[in-house]
């Protein structure tokens, strides 16, 4: 399958993400320049981490006015797979492809560390290779990852099983301590109603090779690839 990694001028995890899908998972992958109007026939679009436009206004706020966004929006509305990692998640929120908003981390500091996240939903193209309750050790690196959503919408998220990852202890329990950035209901990642757009604050591309301290993030890329192989690819009759 083919991945397209969107590059904004201030993206800084674009190369890391491309490296992982290309070199670690041997998939086709290309950069998609934000000023272009070409998705280059990608099967899955990734918004990588970084500081898309310096993020002086709000994280991800300016990125949504980029030319390429028009095509990505259409792609997503037609059921195409879109994954937003960290700043990519913030952009998806600003775009309105996912509900809610990001506030500053509760300790008002940038946080870069490995955290544990629990998979709460495996019925998605991004987690189908994982197990419910499985705990992954994946790094976060953000200033604005304190997820917020109003109460009614939060109920909807639960009702429609849209919460995919939650910050947890190593044993899967939720606690105030494990909820490092103060997100509402410890939400670390969520999916849209249609189940094709996922946003997550942790960086799976930083946890896909054992030499980097953890390869728990592989399950996300493996899921996407499996999903595409089994579900998306036209099957011979």
């Amino acid at each position, binding site marked *: 399958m083919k991945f397209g990694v969107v590059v904004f001028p201030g993206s800084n995890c674009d190369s890391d993400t491309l490296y992982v899908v290309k070199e670690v998972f041997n998939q086709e992958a290309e950069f998609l320049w934000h000023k272009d109007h070409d998705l280059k026939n990608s099967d899955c679009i990734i918004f990588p981490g970084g500081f898309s436009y310096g993020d002086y*206004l709000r994280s991800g*706020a300016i990125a949504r006015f980029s030319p390429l966004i028009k095509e990505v929006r259409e792609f997503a509305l037609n059921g195409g797979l879109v994954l937003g990692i960290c700043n990519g998640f913030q952009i998806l929120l600003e775009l309105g492809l996912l509900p809610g908003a990001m506030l*500053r981390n*509760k300790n008002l500091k940038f946080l870069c560390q490995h955290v544990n996240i629990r998979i709460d939903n495996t019925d998605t193209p991004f987690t189908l290779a994982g197990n419910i309750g499985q705990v992954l050790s994946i790094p976060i690196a953000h200033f604005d990852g304190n997820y917020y*959503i109003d109460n009614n919408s939060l109920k909807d998220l639960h009702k429609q099983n849209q919460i995919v990852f939650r910050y947890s202890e190593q044993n899967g329990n939720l606690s105030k301590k494990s909820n490092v950035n103060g997100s509402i209901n410890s939400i670390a990642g969520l999916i849209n109603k249609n189940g094709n757009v996922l946003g997550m604050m942790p960086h799976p591309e930083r946890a896909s090779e054992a030499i980097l301290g953890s390869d728990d993030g592989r399950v996300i890329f493996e899921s996407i690839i499996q999903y595409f192989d089994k579900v998306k690819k036209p099957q011979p009759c």
Partner: protein
Amino acid sequence: MKVRVLVSFKDSILDPQGKTVEHSLHTLGYDFVDEVRQGKVFELELKGISREKAEKIIPEIADKVLANPIIEKFSFEIMD
């Protein structure tokens, strides 16, 4: 024409930065400070547009770009 747009968190949103400033002020002995809310100020210099038009278009700009309506509210004043 100069326009000042003030963006701040909605009252229902916890404002940790404001809370931190509030805490420091209390530590410094300014007990009478009851609450601090932090926000952002944007100063826009407009040209070739009437005051009436500006009053219409500024909320659009604020809503679309300067503020995130999910967590933030805004107000503005035309300074002249």
